[in-house]
């Protein structure tokens, strides 16, 4: 009896992982395929070399952190289209404060950047929760407003030339591991616990799953919708600081374009339902890795970025179609 119980548990575990984390197998498959191709085409093991792995992780950190933010929006049944603009705004804020204050003001610069992320999240969240705009409209508007404001404030000129430590969040190392990678893993660790083991995390899932039922269960739906977008805003701000460090500058056009789509694709192929209520943050981490590994591999293979864009678009549509299909099965 006991052994059959044990084996049942193991089978259930495999079933559970394959259901919730199909993306893990997809990433393994992708790595294998790209390894094979780079091996054949380039004749070297550069793809799985430690330098490239570190590189992939470092590239993944920005999109990974933004995707974590996007995850909280989507799992609550919302979406944040302003992530790219928020990343740029916080990056510029970090750069501007650092430029004027120097290294002594590093903490202020970081806090300032986090603060603007928080404010953008608050505005997004208030527009949606309290002024009842659809998430699409509210965050699309904010995307344009924030981006425009950055260009106005900076005169579309990047900010250069900092005292040392400016680029530490993006380019630093601790024990041979890049700082942004450490930040990403720490954030995922904390927010996975938040999503799975905190009351607020459970509430966000509940609202995404069925807003009316959540409301009738005594959940303050408006407040927690606001929270979801504030989390997203703050995570974007962290990503913005890292990106500013990696670019060693404050770029007004940072995170324009790809970042939004990459974050949404990472969330969806990470197994999160586009309609909310379902999915795991850990899956999103693998989703982000998938996106990064894909571009990294394609770049190594010499595929130009326009073709990469086509590939990403196909994957996006495929992932959404899969999500629709999965949900239809239930009904």
């Amino acid at each position, binding site marked *: 009896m006991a052994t059959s119980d044990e084996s049942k548990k193991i089978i259930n575990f495999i079933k559970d992982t394959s259901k919730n984390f199909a993306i893990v197998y997809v990433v393994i498959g992708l790595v294998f395929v790209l390894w094979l191709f780079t091996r054949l085409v380039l004749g070297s093991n550069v793809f799985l070399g430690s330098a490239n792995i570190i590189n992939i992780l470092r590239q993944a950190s920005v999109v990974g952190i933004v995707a974590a933010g996007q995850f909280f929006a989507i799992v609550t049944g919302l979406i944040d289209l302003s992530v790219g603009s928020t990343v740029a705004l916080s990056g510029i804020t970090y750069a501007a404060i650092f430029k004027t204050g120097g290294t002594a003001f590093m903490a202020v610069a970081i806090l300032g950047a986090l603060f603007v992320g928080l404010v953008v999240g608050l505005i997004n969240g208030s527009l949606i929760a309290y002024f009842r705009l659809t998430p699409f409209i509210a965050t699309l508007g904010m995307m344009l407003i924030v981006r425009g404001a950055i260009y106005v404030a900076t005169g579309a000129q990047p900010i250069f030339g900092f005292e040392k430590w400016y680029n530490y969040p993006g380019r630093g190392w601790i024990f041979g591991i890049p700082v942004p990678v450490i930040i990403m893993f720490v954030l995922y660790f904390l927010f996975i616990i938040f999503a799975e083991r905190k*009351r607020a995390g459970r*509430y966000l*899932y*509940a609202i995404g799953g069925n807003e009316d*039922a959540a409301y009738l269960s*005594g959940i303050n739906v408006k407040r927690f919708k606001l929270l979801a977008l504030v989390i997203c805003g703050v995570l974007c701000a962290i990503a913005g600081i890292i990106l500013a460090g990696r670019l060693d500058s404050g770029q007004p056009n940072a995170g324009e374009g790809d970042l939004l789509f990459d974050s949404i694709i990472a969330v969806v192929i990470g197994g999160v339902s586009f309609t909310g*209520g379902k999915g795991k943050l850990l899956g999103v981490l693998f989703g982000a890795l998938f996106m990064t590994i894909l571009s990294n591999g394609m770049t190594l293979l010499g595929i130009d970025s326009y073709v990469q864009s086509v590939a990403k678009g196909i994957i996006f549509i495929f992932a959404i179609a899969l999500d629709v299909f999965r949900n239809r099965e239930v009904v």
Partner: protein
Amino acid sequence: MHDYILEINGVSKSFPGVKALDNINLQIKKGEVHALVGENGAGKTTLIRLISGIYRADSGTILYNGEELAHVGPHDCIEKGISSVHQDFKMVETLTVAENIFLGKPLIKKSFIGRNVDWVTMKKEARKAVRAMGVDVDPNAVIGDLSVAKKQVVEICKALQRNVTLLILDEPSAALTENEIEIMFGLIRKMKEQGITIIYISHRIEEIFEITDRVTVLRDGKTIITDDVANLDRQLLIKHMTGRQIVDIYPEKNQRFGDTVLEVKNLNSEASRLSNISFSLRKGEILGISGLVGAGRTELVRAVFGADRYDSGEIYVKGKKIESGSVLKMIKLSVGLVPEERKVDGFIPDFSVSKNVTLAGIEKIIRRSFLNTMVEKKAATDLIKLLRIVTPGANTEITSLSGGNQQKCIVGKWLFVDSDILIFDEPTRGIDVGAKQEMYNIIANLAKQGKSIIIVSSELPEVLGICNRIIVMCNGKVNGELIADETNQEEILNYAIA
């Protein structure tokens, strides 16, 4: 050859968990006004949807003018001359009367710039059509600005414009005033003169006798009787509608009540269309709220639960006055609502049984400021045992359970937070007889344990069988208060219809 315009032979239709129609036989004569009556859930709506091509029958045949009506969609049915006018009109609110009447089939005229929509003639025709109904409606008026009665006229005009031969009127009088009903009866008589056959669905018994020729009674998805109206009277018809009272499935009633735990005084809400509602509930008591669909029962319990705001009035829970519109406060004061539409606002479909039952009282599974899944699972398992929820386990997704078991989970949610006042809105809708009986036992046991219960139900035998006291609602008002053991279905219906 064909005396009947519509012949339905042995039609059955099932939905997951429910047999909505069971071997229905119905013949509609050409040119008659045929009433279709039955309690809520008797299968009237399903039957209409079959006739108008929205659903497809599982078995049996539907003959229309002797020709089988199979595998056709709603559009084909309209083409063939079957139109239905529902309570919720299917018109474009932002378009004008004329535009709606000719929607989808505009009049075309040819001119030197090609084929154009002929607005002038359409407006003229629309005016003529509306006038023919004896009602004055401006063809240029926007539908959204019209009264319900006028919308109905437009909807009927639209059907007539499409050469309707069989018109289905689904609860046409529900939203009308006495005068407007008279106008509508005039329309029906006119249409009858034109040879149009009408299926008339209504809850209002008087109307059946006034306007229809024959009547068919549906109950529990079966045809009970078809007869000339002349051969029936009011009492007989109600008896057919409600059937024998099955006493056996109801548990013994608790008769020992404690103090008043809930008191509602002069509750008014314009948005929820509630006026001057007062009632009270004692510890251990089961109070039924009866009335027809649209009487304001769901609106009332939502307002009491804090889900919707009310304009004026007072609600006291255990002697404490409650402000309007706070679900959380009501839950804290141990009030729970099991809502009407399970799938719409009852549970979180993506959640497991255990996550659903703990949702309203999540503080109880927090240990050292984190949600403790062991505690959660233990609590859920206990509730599964207590309520005898049939599920493979606490971690099973709630959507894979049957309707009755899903319902038990929602009850479990309130037991988990230890609610003292439980409000059930249509607790047995869409679940089978066995599950119903279990639900009655659960409710009766809760009352015996000193919980106070409010049950909103359209099923009269259920209200009579399980409640101690019944308030009957009509048009957002409380129309009567009755002791369940001293009343009967006829009396309740009288209050509900009046």
